């Protein structure tokens, strides 16, 4: 049976459960969440809230199929199809990630010694965008995120924490993903850059992207959030 989503629902977690069994630490079992259902629609920004350790990042990673939920489904609108990431083959998940599902992690992780501009260009050229156009788009986004052109030819390993995070953000926002998962993208940024990222998120929602994010900064939350989901309470917050 093909799962069905309402026309403007982009992402739906259905009765999702996540736990960890630590085999090398006496088989301890940690239950993170269970029976979790949520939906995100086109143009909406859902904020995951809850205290540290409530499982916000684990949920976000489960939505990206980076973690493997023990039960339930993660339904993603991928073009004209609905794909359940919990049941999909790896190549299918990679295809969904390439075209539909963007994710900004808390830390930049890239092949060493690859120049910054190439890192930001790669997601576009991988999708078949003309290399010249891809470089131009990558460059203008880096400039907008205040990475000076002098740094574009350098690998980001020696950059400051905030600069690395902005490169990380650029690598995802360089293409117009229909769904974005953001894990504290503004955590290590100064006020100006935080505002730029807030604008980028708002623009993404404006063009119809569905966003799920974790933000510790109240100002960012107020600026971009349409709804929030409280993980400690296990339900939608007011």
């Amino acid at each position, binding site marked *: 049976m093909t799962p069905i989503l309402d026309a403007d629902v982009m992402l739906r977690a259905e009765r999702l459960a996540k736990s960890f069994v630590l085999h*090398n630490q006496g088989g301890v079992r940690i239950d993170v969440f269970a029976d979790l259902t949520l939906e995100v629609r086109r143009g909406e920004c859902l904020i995951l809230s809850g205290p540290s350790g409530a499982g916000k990042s684990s949920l976000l*990673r489960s939505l990206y*199929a980076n*973690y493997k939920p023990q039960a339930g489904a993660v339904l993603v609108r991928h073009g004209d199809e609905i794909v359940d990431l919990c049941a999909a083959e790896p190549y299918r998940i*990679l295809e969904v990630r390439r075209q539909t599902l963007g994710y900004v992690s808390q830390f930049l*992780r890239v*092949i060493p*010694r690859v120049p910054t501009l190439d890192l930001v260009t790669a997601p576009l050229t991988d999708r078949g965008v003309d290399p010249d156009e891809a470089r131009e788009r990558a460059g203008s986004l880096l400039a907008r995120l205040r990475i000076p052109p002098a740094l574009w030819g350098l690998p980001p390993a020696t950059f400051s924490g905030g600069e690395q995070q902005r490169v990380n953000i650029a690598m995802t926002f360089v293409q117009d993903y229909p769904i974005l998962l953001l894990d504290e993208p503004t955590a290590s940024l100064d006020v100006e850059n935080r505002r730029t990222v807030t604008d980028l998120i708002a623009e993404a929602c404006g063009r119809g992207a569905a966003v799920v994010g974790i933000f510790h900064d109240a100002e960012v939350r107020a600026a971009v959030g349409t709804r929030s989901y409280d993980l400690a309470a296990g339900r939608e917050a007011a």
Partner: protein
Amino acid sequence: MSEARRRLLMRTDWGIVYQNARDGLRMKVSAGANVGERLMAIGDRHYGHIRAEAVDWLERVEMDLGRIDDLPATFSGGMQQRLQIARNLVTKPRLVFMDEPTSGLDVSVQARLLDLIRGLVGSLGIACVVVTHDLGVVRLLSHRLMVMKGGDVVEHGLTDQVLDDPQHPYTQLLVSSILPV
């Protein structure tokens, strides 16, 4: 499959990059000849064409062209690995097996080689099966991962999922044993 057919596959559709470059190269003929041999093995006899292909592929793996007529025995480990890759890819294989392609190399050489392999595999649309015990290489190079122990596959799946949320005790042990730099 007959032995003759299998040997033809090894020269055309398949490529093999050995852990020890000495197993994959002819040490007593020049770098250019090492690349050219694969072409001659599938019937190319035009010297100018073979030479041009060798130059092209040595450039693609970022070798110094001034060394094209030198013996691989005089090359560094990283250069030998790049020569092995050029020698394999010149016949445009569709499937390449790599056995520990970066082990034993200086880490600075390793990073360049990984990026090179990733770029070539992506742009040429090659399928690659890589054997490695280096989880850093696994994460940066592979899409899918199979974890083996005692001859059995104990876990397999999307690379980042297996590394970030390992389910099997052995995989959990491996991942938790990575030394931080």
